[in-house]
């Protein structure tokens, strides 16, 4: 009963638009096939609605990144690419990085960063933007 409440809560996790055309998808908790399908739909609809050019998929809240999770991420990235949206993965912990290597998981061409900050910087760079201090230029 409690687990169900958590899953329902997480399914309502919003996708913040962290910058113009930069959408963030936090993935948290357990992923079953129904959830992954809903997440994919939500992400793609969000990309269309916001004309997003970058989707930052943050997996800090995912305890174990196994083949199933990796496959789900790859699917989101491929579909996003077809919609003209780059996928950036953030929040990979050192432990998960080791697990993925041990499992032989290949995330292909997906750019990965350990922190959201770095992922956001990469997203802005993709849009031809960078952050400057007020005193510069």
């Amino acid at each position, binding site marked *: 009963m409690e687990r169900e409440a958590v899953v329902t809560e997480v399914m309502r996790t919003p996708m913040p638009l962290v910058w113009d055309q930069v959408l963030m998808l936090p993935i948290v908790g357990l992923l079953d096939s129904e959830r992954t399908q809903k997440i*994919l*739909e939500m992400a*793609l*609809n969000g*990309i*269309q609605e916001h*004309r*997003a*050019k970058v989707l930052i998929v943050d997996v800090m809240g995912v305890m174990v990144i196994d083949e199933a999770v990796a496959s789900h991420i790859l*699917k989101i990235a*491929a*579909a*996003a*690419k*077809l*919609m*003209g*949206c780059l996928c950036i993965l953030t929040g990979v912990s050192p432990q998960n990085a080791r697990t993925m290597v041990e499992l032989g998981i290949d995330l292909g061409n997906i750019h990965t960063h350990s922190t959201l900050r770095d992922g956001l910087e990469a997203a802005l760079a993709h849009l031809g933007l960078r952050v400057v201090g007020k005193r510069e230029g």
Partner: protein
Amino acid sequence: MNLMAEADNLVVTLRGDLDDEYIDLLRERLPAEVGRRRSRGVIIDLSAVDFMDAHAARVVEETAKALSLLGAETVLCGIGPGLAASLVDLQSGLARLPAAGWLEDARDVLEELKRRRRV
């Protein structure tokens, strides 16, 4: 299908159900037009297409390869959520083609690809 010339680019708008007849027309007509006009770039607008089966996806992919041999870059645009998800499920090679969300973005992507080809 609607073909529209913009400078040395061609914008092809596909619509509705891409049945075999329609898709064969694309396979024949598009390379012929590109050859005739010496187009350097092609944008295939899929915003009016809700669904593609494996055959249609394959024909579009092969047509893009043929266009490349004719010296033209191809960019897909307007693929919506449903179409994107089903193309991924089909494991379509279309995922390897450059794609943009909207026509304006597709033009930018196309110009960049053409620039690189010239180098």
